[in-house]
């Protein structure tokens, strides 16, 4: 210890760092005055701090360079005695101060440039790009057709499943049965136009049930359309000219979905209120059966 004190803390002043201008000439010296660097055994917090303060004013990176034992910086040279002093000092104070740099595995070269900026930047950008592409993908949704197609002037409507001849006509396709949106619209209209006033929520009351397997006037889309447009004996009114053509198809689609005739992928949304039966998504398909003339329609 005494050797060290002699060697690095001379009685006279000591140059501990040299600052070079850009062209490398005319170095400016940082000198520590009388007494030089503080003796090791007498290192007191304030003395030590004042030295470092001096160093920092001289050059902002100088204290750090001293701690890390690096003598060469772009325009700074730490002198040998100062370096040795710093090295020998090796106290826990220095250790804790430079711990942060050890933890981050950074050398002074790395300090000169922001750490891994480019890699981090590109990683962040890639992450953002992935997020954006996921968002864009999820933006794609079922297109809604708000402008209804013009009504078919001569719809082929059959009043019953029974028909003469051997060749049955191909069933009419209901355009509204393709999307869940139009079936949900049908569900809304079913209540709005007071279908539920007689058929209730499909269980029937004043009118026949719609959620069972019995179909008095046929289960094809065209049959249901005809029932709504033409009306049926004993109570079912005609809604000709009262309900727009596309809305009739939507209601007809919903009526068929009540007994599970349509796939679950196009089922309308669940009801907001409590429902007497299972939701349309979960109701199982009922095999349609012609049930003939209902009792109420029989001739007396």
């Amino acid at each position, binding site marked *: 210890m005494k050797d060290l004190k002699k060697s690095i803390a001379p009685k006279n002043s000591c140059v501990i760092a040299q600052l070079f201008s850009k062209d490398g000439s005319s170095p400016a010296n940082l000198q520590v005055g009388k007494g030089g660097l503080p003796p090791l055994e007498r290192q007191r917090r304030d003395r030590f701090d004042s030295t470092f303060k001096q160093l920092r004013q001289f*050059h902002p990176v100088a204290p750090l360079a001293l701690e890390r034992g690096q003598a060469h910086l772009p325009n700074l040279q730490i002198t040998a005695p100062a370096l040795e002093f710093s090295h020998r000092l090796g106290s826990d104070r220095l250790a804790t101060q430079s711990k942060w740099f050890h933890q981050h595995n950074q050398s002074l070269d790395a300090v000169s440039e922001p750490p891994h900026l480019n890699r981090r930047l590109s990683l962040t950008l890639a992450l953002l790009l992935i997020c954006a592409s996921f968002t864009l993908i999820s933006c794609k949704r079922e297109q809604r057709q708000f402008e209804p197609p013009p009504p078919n002037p001569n719809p082929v409507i059959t009043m019953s499943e029974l028909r003469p001849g051997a060749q049955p006509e191909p069933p009419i396709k209901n355009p509204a049965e393709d999307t869940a949106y139009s079936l949900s619209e049908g569900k809304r209209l079913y209540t709005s136009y007071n279908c539920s006033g007689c058929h209730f929520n499909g269980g029937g009351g004043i009118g026949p049930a719609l959620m069972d397997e019995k179909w008095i006037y046929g289960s094809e889309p065209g049959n249901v359309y005809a029932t709504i447009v033409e009306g049926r004996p004993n109570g079912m009114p005609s809604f000709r*000219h009262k309900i727009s053509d596309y809305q009739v198809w939507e209601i007809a689609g919903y009526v068929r979905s009540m007994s599970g005739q349509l796939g679950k992928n196009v089922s309308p949304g669940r009801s907001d209120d409590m429902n007497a039966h299972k939701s349309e998504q979960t109701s199982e398909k009922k095999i349609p059966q012609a049930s003939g003339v209902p009792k109420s329609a029989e001739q007396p």
Partner: protein
Amino acid sequence: MPGGNHTQKFCGITLLVAATLLSGCGGLQSAVNPAGPQSNHISKLWWVMFYVSTAVFVVVIIFLFLALANGRKRNALAGPGHYAPPELKPLPEGERKKRNLVLGATVLTVVVLFVFLMESFFVGRGLTSDLSSKQGVSIEVTGHQWWWEVRYMNVDASSIFSTANEIHIPVGVPATLTLKASDVIHSFWVPNLHGKKDLIPGKLSTIWLQADRAGVYRGQCAEYCGHQHAHMALWVIAEPAEQFNTWLQTQIQSAVPPANESQKRGQQVFLSSSCVMCHTINGTRAGSNIGPNLTHVAGRHTIAAATLENTRDHLSQWVTDSQQVKPGNRMPPNLLSPEDLQALLDYLQSLK
């Protein structure tokens, strides 16, 4: 001259921004142009928050620039192309100063937030207090996708009537609004008179509001409610008591019977087409409550929830193809022959 060009551009942008900001002042739909006791409370709260927040913002920016300047000074010392690391060995006196500064700022923030909290609390009390003591007009407002049903309540059942998208109130008399929703959550917001209040399906909420000066105030649905949420507006018309009573007496009446052949035919068209499935005209067989009540539709200033001015052209456009105006709305397109359409428009325009 590039310099002049720049200056011109800068002036233009400044003007544009100023115009945009100023267009919010003194508007028909503006919370800083209060016309009633509640909106007065709210705008006072807004100005207090505005001035305090502006001061906080300015102080924060000043400190930010000080910190930036400090960092630049250090970087300049580190030499070109290098950046100075944070000080690893902070000086104790500097640390103490910084700690006191942060502590002071924290305390100040808590105090400011507490003042805001108390102010907000008292404004909230002012808005909702003594609701039961308000004896004035009683109105029931129901939010539908995408229009407002307005029902004037009365102890005399024959004086109850329903209109749409237009609320008339007498000046200086409190109006109690009962808010309901038929499908999804909406929010009733007439900023000149009151703050926002949600309309929740299955729940009744009540507010009261009062207009201290006659005028027309715009309201808007303030809770996203579906495709045409943006086109779900309403007008509040505050008028002197005698004018309001005249309006009230008119509204209570049934619809005017058709006066000429064209209007008679129009009524027949209305009753025999899809109109009758959704709309009510008091005094006729039409009595469905799905769409707006049309008993006095010609007396309203706008149609389609304050989207279109109530003119013959707009009415015709709306009846024939409303999906062009408000895509996704509940009104189906109607294919009517030109004669039927003109007769229907004659009839609708006679319903004063």
